[in-house]
């Protein structure tokens, strides 16, 4: 079983990071120039290496926070230790899969 404190700390840290990264993400998408309105805008946006790094970081943080959040909700329902192991594994798989999918999307757009 994961340490309760560590899980909580990671949830809090990813949340804190997200406040900044999400702010950046929304700002860039909607308020920089006219926002990312066309496909070419998206390509130009992601071609900046710093932006790309931040967006990948954002992707990782959001998925991590969401997975931990869903796990917390399920834990609150009162599940057995075995169910918890299965749940955590399943959620990890989903999270990693979505992350890889996101990275693949970045790659497709940029090439």
């Amino acid at each position: 079983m994961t340490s309760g404190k560590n899980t909580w700390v990671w949830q809090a840290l990813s949340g804190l990071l997200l406040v900044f990264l999400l702010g950046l993400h929304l700002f860039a998408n909607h308020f920089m120039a006219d926002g990312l309105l066309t496909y070419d805008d998206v390509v130009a946006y992601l071609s900046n290496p710093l932006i790309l790094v931040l967006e990948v970081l954002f992707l990782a943080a959001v998925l991590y926070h969401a997975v931990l959040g869903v796990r917390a909700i399920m834990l609150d329902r009162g599940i057995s230790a075995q169910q918890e192991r299965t749940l955590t594994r399943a959620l990890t798989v989903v999270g990693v899969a979505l992350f890889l999918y996101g990275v693949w999307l970045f790659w497709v757009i940029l090439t």
Partner: protein
Amino acid sequence: MAEVTFKIYRYKPGAIDPPRYDTFKLDVEAHETVLDILERLRLDDPTLTYRHSCHHGSCGTCGMMVNGKEVLACVTRVLDLGTETVVVEPLRHLPLVSDLVVDMTPFFEKYEPIGMPYLRESEYLPEGQPPPEVGTYMRFESCLECGLCLSACPVVGTDPAYLGPAALAAAARVVQEPRGQDVARVLQMVDTEQGCWRCHSAMECSEVCPNDVDPGGMIMYLRRELLTGKTLSGGKR
């Protein structure tokens, strides 16, 4: 003096099952509490079951839900509630024995492993005096073990393994003022996924606590102590 309608939750396994609400209309005086009303109703219906003891808010026995909120019935004046209808129900999240009586066993099952911190050296002995560097501390003895906090906590409602506000407040008390208790052991018990990290800070427990134990605040205190690397080996701050 006013006329008030009371809807009292009734349940008796095998007899009043499924539960129902019995309705009574009574003239109520300004000083009468919910417990006074229950005593009056019982004269007509001796099967009405509830717990009571001190009648002045210091034993924690008469905890129940009145108009959807956890209170001690003996200090809740009916007319102060300000409603024409008063709904009286048992505490939530605890097994229901009969009518307004709940089984407090789960409460104590979470509470006792902390180590019954209220049993300790007399505060009149020199060894029992808190060290001078302890500036302020909460009297844990404030806890009446009434169970209102467990009834109000949304996590206790769905997760039976969660230690709960009362036990965690007791643990915080041990950490603040060990008086011979093993702080490391207690901290280990609360530093778990079902301990102080399960809390979602709804603070409903502190909201309903009749004696200012502030379990929510105590849980946050425990978190801070654990986050700032509170040593597991000493009781010093």
